[in-house]
């Protein structure tokens, strides 16, 4: 019996494995990360290609979200961009759990007072709270 051609999407979607979803999702996340770093550095894909010694076409393949990126290519990209593209959860914990402190000042509002001729005035707060707190990792 021949297959119903109009039902091809259902058949193919049923064949998608969890690893296909993970592969594409991670690939696109890496592409997004590289693009963000290029934007930050104000580099074009052409500039990145020049620095990597690759053709523009090869770099566009790397960013397509469908290319099977090797760890070697990621390492080359990280070296050229000067920052991480991927970070493992353990490494992220070490990196982002280290304490960071913020200092803030709080000035307390003082209620308006009335002088002897009936004019309202506000005295600058003489109470200043100062503190240093640890910023929590999100």
């Amino acid at each position, binding site marked *: 019996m021949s*297959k119903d*051609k*109009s039902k*091809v*999407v259902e*058949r*193919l*979607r049923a*064949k*998608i*494995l969890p690893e*296909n*979803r993970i*592969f*594409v*999702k991670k690939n*696109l996340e890496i*592409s*997004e990360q590289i*693009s963000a770093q290029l934007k930050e550095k104000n580099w074009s*894909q052409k500039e990145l290609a020049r620095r990597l010694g690759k053709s523009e*076409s090869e770099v*566009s*393949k790397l*960013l*397509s*979200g*469908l290319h*099977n990126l090797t760890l070697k290519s990621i390492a080359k990209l990280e070296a050229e961009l000067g920052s991480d593209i991927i970070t493992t959860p353990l490494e992220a914990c070490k990196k982002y759990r280290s304490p960071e402190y913020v200092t803030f000042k709080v000035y307390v509002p003082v209620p308006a007072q009335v002088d002897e001729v009936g004019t309202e005035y506000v005295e600058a707060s003489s109470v200043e709270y100062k503190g240093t707190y640890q910023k929590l990792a999100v």
Partner: protein
Amino acid sequence: MNIFAHIERLNDFQYRKVRYFSIHIEGNEVNEFFDFLNRMEEVSEVTDDLSNLLVWIEEIGENYGAIKNRFFRNESITADVQALPPPRREMVAHEIEVNDLRLYCMVLNENVVFLFNGGIKTRENAKDCPNVGPYIKQANKIASRLDAMLSSHEVSWNEDHTDIKFDETLEIEL
């Protein structure tokens, strides 16, 4: 003999950021994208690539949008088919590449994409490949027709350019 086609909204491929369409050639059982999927379904070597492609279409559609310079390529197919680069602003066909698998398409903007046909590329120069050569030619022809239809407003944009409007009986001569 003249061949006619019409635009078909791919109802299974309507996402938050991208609406996908295809064209349906008169007399064919399914649209061009479904024809591609049906043919590739029979090739066991590309099962994994085809799965990745479907997930990619979904991910781009739901979370990223059809960013031309990042996710879609056109240099290889326009250079192969056209002797001269297209006049500025004229829309051209694009290519989605998964290893040797090629799907030709047309990116109207970040929100609207037409998926056409394709196959498994077996030659260095796609134009010379019997599997994909004819589909590159077809994709460029349709892209040129759709471009003209947008200019003449036979196909028009909705208010915020996130979708297109067209008469379902509108014929595209190929």
